[in-house]
């Protein structure tokens, strides 16, 4: 990431002052608005769209922990999403387990898989790590396709929540709005806590110089695996809710590289390693792609690709850092960033 000047007070020595009160008030007001939206403003399908936005906030935050804070660019985070989804669907469909029991089970599977996968894979750096995680995700999808007795293979698996054979009640679009909202808040809260904690400092030290971090007494293996596990936890929970929401799920979608790429794009465009960046990125990109799809039926993917290119070239350090830089220097220049990274 760009080396960005720090205008902030030293972490941990911030007292509660009027600024904090205002911020707290805005935060609370925002939550109240979000809680009231479904009842008073949003149509059912819009609640569903918003649920999708919240889901991507959670996914981008999950990626942010390992990719942003620890500096390990996972290109296989979707594996946790898929495993969480399939754990939930299998438990609910085959064993009749209630969602509230399936959800923690999915989270546990996410954590366990992150640890198992992380121990060998987190020894790799940079592109190698990115590709190893990508390979694991693709490989797991193939396994899920082939275990069709358990997973239904490419025919998908259905949580019997709707229709004559339903065994569980379905929360509806409003229900999932709140599920995913809660998850997004949880994910952002976790990232906020991490950003202020010793754990967060340790991860950032690892991202910037792993050798020096180890010399400073940071157990890099433990911290990296912990960050990956936390990432796996949040991502698997998102997958669990998604499986229930979708009713029928397919390996091609639940393990889609596109979902990983979206997580990365959202976190990067918003600002990796920041608390609010992934939120901004997820909200912005979800609405943008929704809008493009409605208005440019044939061209939207083409345009979306173009936007990614432009965003990466002009805002390689993300919106949050860009805004902070511009504020600090009292000028806005997109060319500065190009100067920083070009050959």
């Amino acid at each position, binding site marked *: 990431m760009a080396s*960005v*000047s*720090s*205008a*902030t007070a030293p*972490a941990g020595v911030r007292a509660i002052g009027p*600024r904090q009160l205002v*911020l707290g008030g805005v*935060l609370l007001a*925002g939550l109240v608005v979000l809680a009231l*939206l479904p009842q008073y*403003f949003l*149509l*059912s*399908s*819009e609640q*569903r*769209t918003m649920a*999708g936005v919240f889901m991507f906030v959670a996914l981008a935050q999950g990626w942010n922990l390992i990719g942003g*804070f620890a500096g390990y660019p996972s290109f296989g985070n979707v594996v946790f999403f898929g495993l969480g989804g399939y754990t939930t669907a299998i438990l609910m469909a085959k064993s009749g387990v209630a969602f509230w029991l399936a959800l923690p089970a999915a989270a546990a599977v996410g954590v366990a898989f992150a640890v198992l996968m992380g121990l060998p894979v987190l020894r790799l750096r940079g592109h190698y790590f990115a590709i190893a995680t990508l390979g694991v995700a693709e490989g797991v999808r193939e396994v899920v396709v*082939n275990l*069709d007795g358990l997973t239904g*293979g*490419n*025919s*998908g698996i*259905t949580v019997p929540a*709707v*229709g*004559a*054979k*339903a065994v569980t009640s*379905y929360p509806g679009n409003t229900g999932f709005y709140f599920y995913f909202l809660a998850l997004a808040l949880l994910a952002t809260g976790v990232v*906020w806590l991490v*950003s*202020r904690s010793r754990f*967060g400092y340790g991860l*950032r030290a690892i991202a910037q110089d792993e050798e020096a971090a180890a010399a400073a007494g940071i157990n890099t293996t433990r911290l990296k695996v912990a960050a990956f596990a936390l990432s796996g936890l949040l991502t698997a929970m998102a997958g669990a809710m*998604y499986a229930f929401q*979708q*009713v*029928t799920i*397919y390996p*091609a*979608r639940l393990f889609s590289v596109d979902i990983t790429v979206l997580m990365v794009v959202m976190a990067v465009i918003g600002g990796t*390693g*920041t608390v*609010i960046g992934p939120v*901004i990125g997820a*909200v*912005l990109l979800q*609405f943008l792609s929704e809008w493009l799809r*409605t208005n440019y*039926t044939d061209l*939207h*993917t083409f345009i979306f690709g173009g936007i990614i290119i432009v965003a990466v070239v002009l805002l390689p350090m993300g919106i*949050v*850092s860009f*805004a*902070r830089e511009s504020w600090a220097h009292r000028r806005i220049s997109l060319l500065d960033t190009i100067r920083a990274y070009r050959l």
Partner: protein
Amino acid sequence: MRDLSPISRCLGFACILAVLVAGCGKGEGNAGGGGGEGTEGGTLRVGAALSLTGSLAKEGRLTKLGYQFCQDKVNDAGGVSAGDKKYKLAITYKDDKSEPDTAAQLVDQFNDSGSKLILGPYGSPSTEAASAVIERNGQVMVDSSGADNAIFAKGYRNTFAVLSPATSYLAAIVQAISENANPKPKTVAIISADDGFSKTAAKGGEAEAQKQGMTVVAKEEVAEHTTNVSSALTKIRPKKPDLILVSAHVEEGIAAVKQSNELGVKPKGFGETVAPPTPDFVKALGKQAEGVVGSTQWTPDSEGQDKIFGTAKDYAQGFKERFGETAEYHSAEAAAACLALALGVEKAGSTDPAKVRDAIAGLETESFFGPIKFDDTGKNADKPMSAIQIQDGMPVTIFPADQAQAKLQWPAG
């Protein structure tokens, strides 16, 4: 610096709020326009989520042509009459990017904007995802392409498919060959892609082959959308089957024929589910395509007629005039689905989704697409499948016998 400064936090929230406010505004606008069961001002508004981009864009486009053609024909005939009112048919299309979850989301959006009557998306996964939402919202959907029998085993009441189910695709080929081939093939090898539709079709074909007294000597699965089936063919080669059946899509289907020739696998004939009627098949294979038998939901020789499209031949002719390209079965399926929906509304005498649902369930009619009559699960179970054979670079109908334009050539190719 990673620690969040108050400024950026403010900016972030301003951003979210701005977006939300924008979202709300839109919400209210739409809510005001809703209601009226999608029938404002004498128009019957029907929604269709389609794969206009993504991996199924090609089939999605063909489906859209069928819906468009249906809309034109219905409105040319004065629209849909329900009770004493006449409605203009207006189909709204939205792109699901070939993703099932987006298709489901779009069905919800149609519901909010008042479209309770839905025409199906392309492909079994998207259809299944959409049908769950349909069920929940009390909408009604007529499915034009989701053939996998699994969709109809979920206990959903509001989804109806005009097409023959997946189990009959390969079975029809086996019947066609069994009835007409001389000598009748004794041994069969089956190659199936590993998606739900192909696997279900393969099972149907296997059962039919055994019923016809053939021996299934090999069954191989390949990954969906692969262009490499040489491993499967290498395993099949020493068994020297008389007939190789392929239950897959266009790319695997082309590869199977091509790589059989390369590897010197020489059965007396090939039967493939959906690939042969597709123009790409003959274009890609050229001479090698000769003699391959395929199954199709519809041909211009299909039996039956209706008041909107006339006979299958009339349909084919009208379609060519309207779009300048040859009618094929994807668009015919779509037009038939649209027709079933229109007939359902007329029969119900209302646009109320519950009444339309019951009317469609009780529909029993002929059409350019063949008979339309749904069983308890919503499948159009009695519709026969047709079989074609590539002869002189053209797909020619060879089955059922009463529609056949030519005799099966056997050994083929």
